């Protein structure tokens, strides 16, 4: 395996770029229309919006940032960092849920 891998060039097919762009466009329109067309309470709004956002991010990371075709280590790095952030969110969430409320142990 050469370290200077430009020798293995093949022509890039840009079709996938446009397909993903189309999907992102649709999702963006959906996300903007959601509060108007399907208004719901704050919690559900957050849930729907974050679902759409994470889908868009997954598309960008997989295709635009080429994670899908990358070596497993890149996938590990991205998922690992996401998992780390997630663990921090979980610990703060536990504290927020319990602090000075009736949900706490030994109130």
């Amino acid at each position, binding site marked *: 395996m050469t370290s200077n891998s430009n020798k293995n060039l093949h022509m890039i097919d840009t079709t996938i770029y446009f397909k993903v762009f189309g999907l992102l466009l649709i999702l963006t329109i959906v996300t903007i229309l959601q509060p108007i067309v399907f208004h719901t309470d704050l919690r559900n709004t957050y849930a729907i919006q974050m679902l759409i956002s994470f889908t868009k991010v997954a598309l960008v990371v997989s295709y635009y940032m080429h994670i899908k075709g990358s070596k497993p280590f890149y996938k590990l790095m991205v998922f690992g960092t996401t998992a780390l952030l997630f663990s921090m969110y979980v610990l703060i969430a536990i504290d927020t849920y*319990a602090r000075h409320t009736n949900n706490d142990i030994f109130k």
Partner: protein
Amino acid sequence: MSNTHTSFYQETHTVFGHHNNKFLQWIFSIDHKRIAIMYGIVMFSFFAIAVLIALSMRLELFYPGQQIMGPQTYNEAFTLHGIIMIFIFIVPGIPATLGNFLLPLQLGARDVSFPRINLLSFWVFVLGIIAVLASLFWNGNAPDTGWTFYAPYSTKTGSNIVLALTGAYLLGLASILTGLNFIATTHRLRAPGMGFFKMPLFVWGLYATSWIQVLATPIVGITLILVILERVFGVGVFDPTKGGDPVLLENLFWMYSHPAVYLMILPAFGIASEIIPTFCRKPVFGYHSIAISSALIAFIGYMVWGHHMFTSGESNTVALVFSVLTFLVAVPTSIKFFDWIATMYKASIVFDTPMLWTLGTFITFIIGGMTGLILGSVGVDVYFHDTYFVVAHFHYAILGGVVFLMFAGMHYWFPKVTGKMYSEIHGKIAFYIIFVGFNVLWFPMFVAGALGMPRRYFDYLPQFTIYHQIATIGSWIFVFGLIYMFVNLYKGIKKGKPAGPNPWNATTLEWQIPSPPQAENFGTIPYVDFMPYEYIKGEPVHHMDLSVDESRKGTHHG
């Protein structure tokens, strides 16, 4: 045998073209070995300043009441002591000095992956220091918040917090750049044949550390930017009058600062893993478990930060969660200790200075670690938090763990870096003086803390006097020992005997090249199909001469 090789002290690669001036050849050098030395000189200069600050604090505390400084000055003193020791000395610490010097050598590489970014990290480091120093004198009070800059005091106090935090931000950036460099280097520049599980354990320590540097430091970076924004623009993220939560700052702060202590100790453990097999002259016991335990410590260490906040108002639920995780993180560390002791079992041990330092550290670090478990128990911590018990705990762990192993590494790799040997007898004497002084200085603080002596107080009740006095005397013994040690090393540089490539009969790649190394590090890169620390009957299995043949010098890289 005289050293006929040209060393990296005589020739180097630089940025911004070629320079004739020697000083410019150093500060513009992209050679990892020179960058390591520059980091070392700056870091130890500030270490000395921080030690002097500590001595003056201990002098003030010799008697109750005010003697040489008032409360405001005392607050500024321990703030500066903490900022220097943490951000300027121990966080760059082993990675920026020994790591920079040795990582490429141990991997069989000619430099790190991004030498120019390496130099940039040094300049950013220096810039950060300038900002911190400026905060002492610029138009107002020196920072007095403690190095932990808790809100709301840090957002309200009149002292030069913005400058100090800008400095801290830059110092953190330097740390991130170093970590990024080391990750890429470890993945990309290993000698052919050297898989991850054939790397020396010091590299494993640096690698795990680099991931902490890279993933944890940004959290404190954004946190201190938010404090700056709050002071300058009134963004109320931590201000209760605007709905903000000071405890959130504590959470964000410790989300970095706790992993930071693992970032400090992991390279130090790596040094122990190098020294033990060399001075026991047998392969290390449990190579794989030591390597994996480094990764485990790094991983679990991200999830224990709340044990700094048991009394800050976090919920009991999460306090218990953090306590359990804190106990869990001690397990991989114990695995390392068992492995090291198992390596020593039935070995013919050579008790030279590096080994002495390592074994001394085992004693002091175990005390530090076990008292950490005491503090990690929520019920006990309610009583011990913010007392001298905590101060003693972290000095036993950081000073008696990280710094002592740094000294061990300095004595171990001294001949490689300088090409000379220090006096062995004076090295041993220095160790014993420092070891005794250290324990006289810090051990009484466990007792004082348990009896209720609060930390960061410039004055105290008369019943604590005896502990302070013993500690202050200990500080004088300790510092005398430090001076003794550094004088011995300095004399070694000036007048020491030539050391040769491998004075310790060690097995890793850095010992198969001249001391000091040549600019290119290696003549031929070896194919590494062997484990590190392979000894048979006390002798290394592989002897190699990997020096550059200078009679046939080829062209260098640009």
